[in-house]
């Protein structure tokens, strides 16, 4: 294991991390189709039996991948996502009225998450203006003859992200397309927990390559790695 010093007190165990995640919490999770989602934290949340979660995530992944099992086990009260098509159980729960789903177009969802992380009060977008389903209940603003939807920022009690490396301050780098929504999700939580493949000593990450500055990261946990089978395997 690592000889990294925990000088900022941010490195904790997965057990300590899930102590912060309780029934009824809002949980924002990085990842896209399960890729780039934190496997060990998600498993620990299932094991703890957390219920009634408001989940904010790009999508509901696949039934056995990423946030999929949380959905499949009925732990999600409401999901704020861009699509649920790859997880048939999500569609079934929605149909049966057992899970509420708020759909946002994918690029608007991630901008809402960014707005939450960047301390903005909202964004105006021209995507979906007048749409019978997706504009429902959203205020509009007219500027210079154009109509925009006012989209609200998203934040959460806890943000969970998955990264390739962290240093003890919480600076993060990601791995290829597993970066996806993680840098934005990392900014948007009131508490952000980063599950990482490797914790490296302070100074080992080049300041130039850091994608998420450590100030956005509250805690760091060592990942046990992915234990699900990918859809292409």
């Amino acid at each position, binding site marked *: 294991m690592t000889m990294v010093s925990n000088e900022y007190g941010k490195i904790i165990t997965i057990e300590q991390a899930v102590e912060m995640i309780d029934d009824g919490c809002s949980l924002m999770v990085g990842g896209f189709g399960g890729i780039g989602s934190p496997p060990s934290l998600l498993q620990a949340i299932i094991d703890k039996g957390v219920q009634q979660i408001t989940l904010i995530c790009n999508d509901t992944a696949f039934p056995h991948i990423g946030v999929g099992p949380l959905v499949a086990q009925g732990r999600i009260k409401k999901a704020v996502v*861009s699509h649920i098509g790859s997880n048939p159980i999500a569609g079934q729960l929605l149909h049966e009225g057992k899970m509420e789903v708020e759909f946002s177009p994918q*690029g608007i969802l991630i901008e809402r998450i960014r707005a939450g992380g960047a301390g903005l009060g909202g964004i105006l977008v021209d995507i979906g203006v007048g749409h019978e389903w997706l504009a429902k209940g959203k205020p509009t603003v007219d500027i210079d003859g154009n109509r925009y939807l006012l989209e609200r920022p998203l934040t959460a009690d806890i943000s969970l992200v998955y990264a390739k490396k962290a240093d003890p301050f919480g600076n993060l780098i990601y791995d*290829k397309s597993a970066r996806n*929504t993680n840098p934005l999700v990392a900014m948007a939580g009131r508490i952000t927990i980063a599950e990482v493949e490797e914790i490296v000593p302070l100074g080992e990450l080049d300041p130039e390559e850091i994608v998420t500055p450590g100030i956005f990261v509250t805690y760091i946990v060592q990942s046990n790695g992915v234990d699900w089978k990918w859809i292409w395997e």
Partner: protein
Amino acid sequence: MDMGVRERIAKRAAQELIDGMVVNLGIGIPSLIPNFLPEERRIIFQAENGILGIGKSPKKGEEDAHLCNAGGYPITVVEGASYFDSATAFAMIRKGLIDVTVLGGLQVSERGDLANWMVPGKRVPGVGGAMELAQKTKKVIVVMSHVNKDGEPKIVQQCSLPLTAWRCVDLIITDMAVIEVTDEGLLLKEVMAPYDVEDVISCTAARLKMASAIKRIE
């Protein structure tokens, strides 16, 4: 549709992609398109999860679980590729920097409205990134079967399914025909063997204008 038909559609769609274009491919049939591009054609493929410069599919056993397209399938990248977050990916899309997107469809109307995200009471997969791609991409190509599983036309006067975006589709490529959406309505340009013009008309629930010379694709 059997694999042969899906591949014929993908093969025809591949002809729309020319050198230097930036292209975003939806999941399903669109993802087959790269297989039909000539080796020397240089298309820049973007994926909304945060990749610009997608290359060939990796060989079996050489997949990287952290290098996948928006559909979750392994890819490789070409020289000059970059990784970024998905907010940046959609900034590119909303700013109109994508030249072509190829999307699947449930219905397309004669003025180019696209419905491809839900069937009320049945399936609600969600819009994903399709709404922004359809609304903001310079050229939107829809690839789909000409009729649905019940034999009903998917090219219609007015969509009965909830829309993804209005007046966005430029070209429709099906297993029966290639149809352009023009300001004057739908223009039938090509017919795929073994079908003929009459077949296409009878399977289409919208007015079709005939191109001056309708090409037959064998």
